[in-house]
């Protein structure tokens, strides 16, 4: 079930979400990484980062709050060890990057430019801009666009640059539009909305960091809405959809909304082979609906109600 992220072909539309698939080696114990569309790395930063204090996670209804704080080894160690490990095994790799300034994102892109094995570059815009009182880039179109333009300018033309957006904004479409206009080859959504939980026993925040990112099925309605809105406004920009995908049905929902690639995040914590299961279920669902190509169903829910779905391989009367 091939799909395309810009001009890059992926064997199938199921990838891991940034920060949820470890370095790859952990998942490789459970299945052959070559069988998923791509592995997305955690967001790589220039310097090594120890992340946030613990507790870093707590459960919420159908959700997970995390405040890991981009713990990671830094770009040097990533290039020295993690990326070559993936490249040797021919694992399609979407490298996610995170920075605190436009210059830092640019420097990261420059470092990754010559590295073999970068299938696409995902720019995690949900990082606080240290030059703007810690306001998260993804909140606003101009700040996001500035990062994307800078990264696009230094990154090899044959590596798609993907802008990863957050639902914590007044208007996701305008942020998406700004990113696309400044050169993003694709968009990825949604990153975790900011949430919080308070431990009613200690009467203090459950996470050491106070607030954290919400993930899991609780946020799927937000993800579907964001993908839907952006697809409606920018039908030609490829979208990586994510947020609470546990099953093939959930992936199909995001695809119907307009995603051509679907990332699985939190579900991996419950089931390390979730990607393969989701892929299998998705294939079954698409086939059961009478379609053979993924392209036939991407964004299909945008057709006017009452209109028959096109491209079906059977021509029986449908209940649509």
């Amino acid at each position: 079930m091939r799909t395309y992220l810009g001009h890059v072909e992926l064997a199938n539309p199921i990838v891991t979400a940034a920060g949820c698939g470890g370095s790859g080696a952990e998942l490789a114990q459970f299945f052959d990484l070559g069988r998923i569309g791509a592995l997305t790395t955690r967001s790589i930063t220039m310097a090594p980062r120890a992340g946030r204090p613990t507790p870093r996670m707590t459960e919420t209804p159908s959700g997970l709050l995390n405040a890991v704080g981009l713990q990671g080894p830094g770009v040097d160690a990533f290039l020295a060890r993690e990326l070559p490990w993936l490249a040797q095994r021919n694992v399609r790799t979407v490298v996610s990057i995170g920075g605190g300034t436009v210059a830092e994102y640019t420097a990261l892109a420059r470092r990754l430019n010559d590295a073999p094995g970068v299938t696409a570059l995902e720019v995690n815009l949900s990082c606080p801009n240290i030059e703007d009182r810690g306001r998260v880039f993804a909140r606003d179109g101009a700040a996001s666009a500035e990062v994307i333009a800078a990264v696009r300018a230094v990154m090899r033309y044959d590596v798609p640059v993907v802008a990863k957006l957050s639902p914590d904004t007044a208007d996701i479409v305008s942020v998406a539009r700004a990113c696309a206009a400044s050169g993003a080859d694709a968009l990825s959504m949604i990153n975790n909305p900011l949430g919080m939980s308070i431990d009613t026993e200690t009467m203090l925040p459950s996470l050491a960091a106070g607030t954290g990112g919400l993930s899991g099925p609780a946020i799927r309605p937000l993800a579907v809405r964001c993908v839907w809105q952006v697809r409606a406004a920018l039908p030609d920009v490829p979208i990586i959809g994510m947020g609470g995908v546990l099953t093939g049905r959930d992936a199909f929902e995001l695809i119907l909304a307009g995603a051509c690639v679907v990332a699985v995040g939190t579900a991996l914590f419950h089931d390390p082979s979730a990607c393969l299961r989701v892929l299998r279920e998705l294939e079954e669902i698409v086939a059961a609906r009478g379609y053979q190509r993924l392209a036939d169903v991407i964004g299909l829910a945008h057709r006017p109600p009452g209109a028959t779905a096109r491209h079906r391989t059977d021509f029986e009367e449908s209940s649509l």
Partner: protein
Amino acid sequence: MLTTRQVDAYHALTVLAPRIAEGFRPGHFLAVAVGGPHTSMLTRRAFFIHDVKPDYGGSVEFVFAVDGPGTAWLAERRARDTLDLVGPLGRPFPLPRDPVNCVVVGDEYGSAMLFPVADALQRRGCRVDFVLGGASADRVFGAKRARRMTETPTLTTEDGSLGVRGRVTDALPGVIADVRADVVYACGPMETLRRATAVAVEFDIPIQVAVEERMACGIGLCMTCVLPVIGEDGVTRMVRACVEGPAFRGERVRFDDVGTIPFDALGAPGGGSRNVS
């Protein structure tokens, strides 16, 4: 497929799980999905493996206290229900090559996972002495089995309802001295491990501890279960309890800094290299 029993303040579940039983080494844990289909509880719950039996191709037993909704759900499981398990997980305890004197220190349900450790030690010809404790008599797990396995296990309770009044770590120095212990194995709350480590350091003997941190995945993906541990190279790193642990050499764990990012940890904010937030 499972069987259940109540052991004082704890529940014990035995589950048919040949693959986990086969791969088991003392110190391993497993992760259980809770809540059933369409539950709102997303994350698996981690439990140390208490026992592994060859019945029916291999079964594993774990012991738990009801704490929140996930363990409450588990406590309601009945014979013949099925459970969704992942395991065995974690780095098991390293065992000594030579027949040395070992003290095994378990606090509350932490005791449960130490029985397979003690078994393995005894099989290697080690002398094993137990120090088991809990808040009250019904929270001291495994006193009976400890009595069967060894001569005089030391039991402690905070309320004095069983054995010596106090904590396991209060009794530990006496036991170490008595038996001329060469090494300590410990499992229990972080505070117990911290104290046990302090005792072992004082006696200048190695200690292996099995730690517990909140875990979202248990398989090294999520980075939520970290604690500051000093590496061979002397550098403190935030390492994952689920894959680099849960067994650690006690002296390497910076217990006083658990729940913080020590300023000298690799990648700590302000720690030399600039950070994004």
